């Protein structure tokens, strides 16, 4: 278990924190995820990578944690993340930095879009693996990421960054 934990806990933590947006909740998630793994080891069928299995459990636990929080609170967080600060010179300067703006807008995506972007780009999951983790058809995985990217482009445009797509 220590080897499994040592190998995967950072990625599980980062996937969790991007979904729940709270470091403490994400730390609690890790304990819950690996404890579940300990308890349900017999259910692991070996048909997918261990990391895919872990991320699927993490996602389920993160969504349960999110359900315990108020939706309004989450919407406010998302809105604050992309709040237009045109009167603030510091924010204006930041807008010139595409990299920073991109990271800010990545954080402002909906949980549904954030998870698919992270799973594909950061966790290097294939179409089939994302479908297994999120529990949706493979074609939906492809189109959901496309629309997540479109939303990202819209947020960037609203923040004053034009990248020439779409």
């Amino acid at each position, binding site marked *: 278990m220590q080897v*499994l934990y040592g190998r995967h806990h950072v990625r599980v933590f980062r996937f969790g924190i991007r979904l729940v947006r709270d470091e403490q909740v994400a730390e609690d998630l890790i304990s819950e995820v690996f404890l579940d793994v300990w308890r349900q080891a017999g259910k692991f069928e070996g048909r997918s990578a261990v990391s895919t299995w872990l991320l699927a459990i993490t996602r389920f636990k993160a969504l349960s944690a999110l359900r315990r929080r108020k939706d309004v609170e989450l919407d406010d967080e998302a809105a604050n993340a992309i709040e237009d600060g045109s009167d603030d010179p510091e924010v204006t300067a930041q807008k010139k930095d595409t990299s920073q703006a991109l990271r800010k807008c990545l954080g402002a995506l909906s949980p549904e879009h954030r998870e698919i972007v992270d799973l594909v780009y950061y966790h290097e999951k294939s179409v089939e693996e994302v479908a297994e983790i999120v529990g949706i058809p493979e074609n939906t995985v492809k189109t959901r990421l496309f629309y997540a990217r479109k939303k990202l482009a819209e947020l960037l445009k609203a923040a004053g960054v034009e990248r020439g797509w779409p």
Partner: protein
Amino acid sequence: MMAMKKILEQEPSEIEVLLPWLAAGTLNARDAKRVEEALARDPALAKQYAVIREEYTETIGLNESLGAPSAHAMAKLFAAIDAEPARAPSMSRNISARISGFFASLSPRTLAWSASLGALALLLQAGVIGAVLVKSQQPASFQTASLSMDEPITRSLGPEAPRVLVRFAPDARVADITALLDSYQAAIIEARGGMFRLQFGARAMSKDEIAALMNRLKSEKIVNLAVAAP
């Protein structure tokens, strides 16, 4: 009718929805070939791909900036496991067997990388031993290790030297990677999935030096991705 036409116009093509997986290097060979051929003949698609590469790089940078959980999380977990009722031994054998099965079923590409890493570890260790023999009078801190994903492989590294996350091209040979590591005075600190965390040199660099290093790295043929990392 107009509404239907608009919807159809907005629908992404079969190829463009696959672009993110090409950027991440997780497309199967057949689809990768199809997408690469389409990229070569469609400038608009190539432009979109450049945007995706930017998103890909920043997503990795953003996630890497999230840090790691505290030791408290691990302590909490193992305290909870200790508090669990005793379990049938067949259960633990089951996960061991299944996880062993997982490693046995790794894709050829992953296995190739593991083999490459093993070879690299041997080469790096040989380099370290040679350096120790030749330069034993110089103050330096060396660490050798058998290949372990959790243990760093270092050679005379300072604590503040810049670190970069690198993904090598799938067709990069061990000899090419070793040559690159040598020419940059770099060492592999960590390998996870297809990504490598490299440390460059033994001293801290200025912002301009790091920018120059990143530009040089990104222009290397065998480097698919380079992102500055803590």
